[in-house]
Structure formats: C-alpha cells, structure tokens
C-alpha cells in the first residue's frame, strides 16, 4: 500500500513543475497581466467606487498610508474627488482594447505583407519593402498627430495609428523567416505537386511563423500600452468621459503642485503592466524563438 506517494511535498511540486515544463515561468508577471485582464473585463462592476463619481468634498484625499487617507479610496482621489483605484481599474479596459485590436490588425497586415514579400520576391518584394521604409520615415507620433487632425481623435484613431506604425516591423521580420522557409524541401514539393498558393501560405508557411508572430505580438503589448497612454495624454486618444491611464495623467498634470498621487498612481499602473508584458514576452521569446533575441 505504501508506494511512492511518500515523496515530500516541495519536491513533488518541483517535479510536477518540471514535468509540466513550468520551470522559470514568470508567475508574478503573468498574475499582473491576469489582474489587468480581469479589471478590463469587470470594469465598473468590480471597482469599489464608480470611476466617474464626483465628490468635491473629498478632492485630493491622499492614499491610505498617508495622514488623512481613507480605506474607501486606498490610492487617494483626484482633483474632482474621484477614486483613483476605481479609475485605474476602469482604465485597464481601454489599454486592453487598444492592445488587442492594434496587435491583431498590425500583426495580420504585417504577416501577410511579410509572407507575400518573402515568398514571391521580385517586384512585389521591392514594392512592399519600399513601403516599409517609407512608413518608417514618418515618426509615429507625427503620424498620429496628422491622423488625429484629419480624422477626429478617439479610440479608433489610436488603433489605426498603432496598426499603421507597427505593421512594418512585423513585415520585415516575417519576410526574413519566409525567405528561409521558402527554400525548404516541403515547400518546393508542395509547389511541384501543384498545391495552390493560398494553401501553401496557410498550411506550410503560417504554422511555421506562428511562434514568431506570438513572440512579436507579446513584445508589442508593452509598447502599444505606452503609445496609447502618450496619445491620450496629448489629448489625441481616448476622450472624456472614458477613462484611460494617459488621460488620468493629463488631468493630474494640471494639479501637479497640489498632489503627487494622481500623477504617480496611474503611471505605476502603466509601468507594472508594461513591465509584466515585457517580461512575459522575453520569456516566450526565449522558449519559442531564441533567435529573435536581437529585438
């Protein structure tokens, strides 16, 4: 009856983690990202207070650990007495939405362009790579400014700008991958066997670049969140009454001499999220695609 269950607890756990390949997993970073996702999904429903609830009597209430702080508003309140914690939780939604759509959009445009460029070569390659270069000759904030001036500023503009900025980055790297994939025998055989181009793209190229795409997308999350915050801070991104971390900072900036917490807290949220996304991205890259380490 007494068989191998006698192994001590910690070692069992260690073995289990090793067996499942969970060694070196950045748990804290993953946990932070999960928390951001939960806040984005839950929004107002799980926030302790309404993010837009004004209470002028409680304006500039400091965080709980400072004199005059209150547990009702653990991170303090802003100039209109709005609860910073609830606003940060609400602001997670915008960051997640922008990151999601922008990455899907830029990733798919970039992957398609890169695959076409690498696979067909010749004129198409020259054309697409020239486009990549031209795209990279306009600073992305400048592109955002002129787009915001032409269209109206808002969530869609932010997503379009980020997609327009980052597709070139994907295209360049995917092209490199496809250039080497194209010379593999199975691609050549498929072509000789008369397999259609679309099938070659979907069945033979795409599965091989999925890892790269996943790594690039994770590494992009942090940058997208920073970019969205910058645009919203300038007033070109998300507009009131929507809550966004960048917008919170732009509000807080006018009262910088009054209180430090409305500046510090949303920034910390941005920093923690980006840090976690970058750590997870690095970890994925090392596991899935170590040759991308130069990025």
């Amino acid at each position, binding site marked *: 009856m007494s068989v191998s269950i006698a192994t001590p607890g910690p070692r069992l756990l260690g073995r289990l983690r090793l067996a499942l390949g969970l060694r070196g997993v950045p748990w804290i970073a993953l946990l932070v990202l999960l928390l951001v996702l939960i806040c984005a999904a839950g929004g107002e429903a799980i926030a302790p207070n309404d993010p837009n609830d004004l209470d002028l009597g409680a304006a500039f209430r400091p965080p709980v650990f400072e004199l005059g702080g209150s547990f009702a508003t653990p991170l303090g309140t802003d100039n209109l007495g709005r609860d910073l914690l609830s606003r940060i939780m609400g602001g997670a939604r915008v960051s997640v939405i922008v990151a999601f759509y922008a990455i899907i959009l830029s990733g798919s445009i970039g992957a398609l362009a890169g695959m076409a460029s690498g696979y067909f070569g010749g004129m198409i390659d020259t054309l697409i790579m*020239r*486009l990549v*270069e*031209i*795209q990279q*000759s*306009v*600073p*992305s*904030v*400048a*592109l955002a*400014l*002129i*787009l*915001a*001036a*032409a*269209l109206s500023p808002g969530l869609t503009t932010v997503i379009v700008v980020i997609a327009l900025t980052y597709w070139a980055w994907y295209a360049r790297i995917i092209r490199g991958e496809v250039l080497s994939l194209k010379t593999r025998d199975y691609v050549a055989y498929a072509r000789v066997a008369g397999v259609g181009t679309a099938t070659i793209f979907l069945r033979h190229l795409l599965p091989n670049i999925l890892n790269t795409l996943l790594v690039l997308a994770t590494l992009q999350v*942090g940058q997208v969140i*920073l970019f969205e*915050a*910058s645009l919203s*801070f*300038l*007033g*070109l991104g998300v507009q009131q009454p929507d809550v966004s971390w*960048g917008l919170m*900072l732009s509000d*807080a*900036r006018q009262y*910088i*001499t009054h209180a*430090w917490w409305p*500046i*510090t807290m949303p*920034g910390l949220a*941005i*920093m*923690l*999220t*980006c*840090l976690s996304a*970058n*750590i997870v991205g690095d970890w994925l890259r090392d596991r899935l695609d170590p040759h991308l380490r130069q990025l």
Partner: protein
Amino acid sequence: MTRFILRRLGEGAISILGASLIVFVISRLSGDPVVLMLPPDAPASSVQALRQTLGLDQPFVIQYGMFLTRALHGDFGQSYRWQMPALRLILERLPATVQLAVAGLCFSLCVAVPVGVFSAVNHGGWIDRMGRIFAMLGQAMPAFWVGLLLILTFAIQLEWLPAFGYGGINHLVLPAIALGWYPVAAMTRIVRSAMLDVLNTDHIRLARALGIPERLIIWKYAFRNAAVPLLTMLGVYFAAMLGGSFVVEVIFAWPGVGRTVVEAVFSRDFPVVQAGVLSASVMFVLANLLVDLSYGFVDPRIRDER
C-alpha cells in the same frame, strides 16, 4: 563609396517623397478643406471659386503634384493661428527641438556607454544585474510620466530646477533626461552585447597576453570596435528622440516643433501640421542617412565592402 553614397541619397529621396504622399493623403482624408476654410453660410459660387484656386477640382495626382511643387518651394500655406507662413514658423522652432534632442541623446549615451561597458567587463556582477533591472524598468515607463515625476521631484519637492520653460542649461536638464530615458535600456543592451563579443576576440586576448593595462584594452581596443553597432543605431535613436519630443515638449512647455504641431492640431491649423510632420520626416531620414554614411568612416571594412 561614391556609388554607395548616391544609392543612399536616392533611397532617402524616395523615403521623403513617400512621407510627403502619406501626409498629403491623410490631409485629404479630413474631407473638403474648403468647408473648413469658409464660413458655413458662404454662397456656393465662392465655394466653387475657392476650390478652383486651390486646384481641388483637378484629379488627385495633379493635386499631389501641386502640393509637392509648393512644398519644394517651401510653401505650405499661411498658418491660421500664428499668422505667418507655416514653414517659417516650423523653422523658427526647429533649433529648440534639435537642441533638446541632442541633449537627450547625450544623456542616454552618458548613461548607456559606461553601464554597458562595465556590465560586459564584469558580466554577472552587480552593475550588470542592476543595469538589467533598470533597463526593464526604463522600457516600461512612458517618457511623459518620467517627465512628470522629474518635475514632481526636482522642481516641486526639491526646487532645484525650473519645472518648465526655455532658457539656460538648467531649463534643459529635466526635459533632456525625460527624453533620453527610454533609449537608455536598448543602448545599454547593444553596448553590452557588442563589448562581450569584442572581448572574446583574439586581438583582445593578445593584448591581455602582452600585458597592456586593462583600462587601455577596454576603452581603446575593445570599445572602439564595440561602438560601431551603437553608431549604426544612433540615427534610429536620434529619430526616436524627435518622435518623443512631441510629448516631452508639451510637458515642459518647450518652444519646439513638437509642441507647435500639437497646438496646431488642436486649433486645426493644417498648414502647420503638414509642414511640421513633413520636416520631422525629413530630419528623420537625414539623421539615418548621415549615420549610414558616417560609419563607413569609422569602420574601414564597411567602406571597402561597398
């Protein structure tokens, strides 16, 4: 070498041309500019007349040609807000932006080069580990937040430096740090890995065997080789500084191109936006071009290959 220079010049010209096309197409996205320029109750005949003088009744390609010809003559139109030619306004503000970008670049180099070199020399040591933590943190902090924190600490709490404005060196310090903060991480990483590569080569090992002082080996023999990858990236970083200056200039009320363009966007001053964005692109391309041409002089091997 001449062929290489000519090819790079040609590519630069095409990039700028492409940038002008992007600017033009996006400007036209906003719809009919005449509607914005005339009062809402303007008679149809004057709308028609203005469209003809602006060439808006012409085909798209001809319109782009007209835009390009005017842009080449430096004519982007009159700024509605500042009441002066848009390009002249931008050129007036340009020196402040360049000054800030150069200062930011100096700051990041001053941090990245020593940290990168020391991290490589004692890799695994505490400088290396601290440097890596700082790099992770730096890449997760938006430039404008760094700027706000700097104002909060050094201008408001400690009252050491002015919070905003333009003037002497003390006005330059905080914006330069805010602008130079972000690239430090990437630059350190480049210096570190290049140094690690160079330190493993035979000529360094030979120098060690000959008993040349370590300081001389590191800075004279190793770093000069390791600086090439950094130099090739310098154009990209200078360009990134120009991009970052839009936000940093707004925070520190720095009278440069970035803040001007942001203000122009909000007052829908289109000529200024066009002139600003296009001149930013031109500087972007020029910076990369200069770097491409210059590393031929630093590393003769590259020069000979081309």
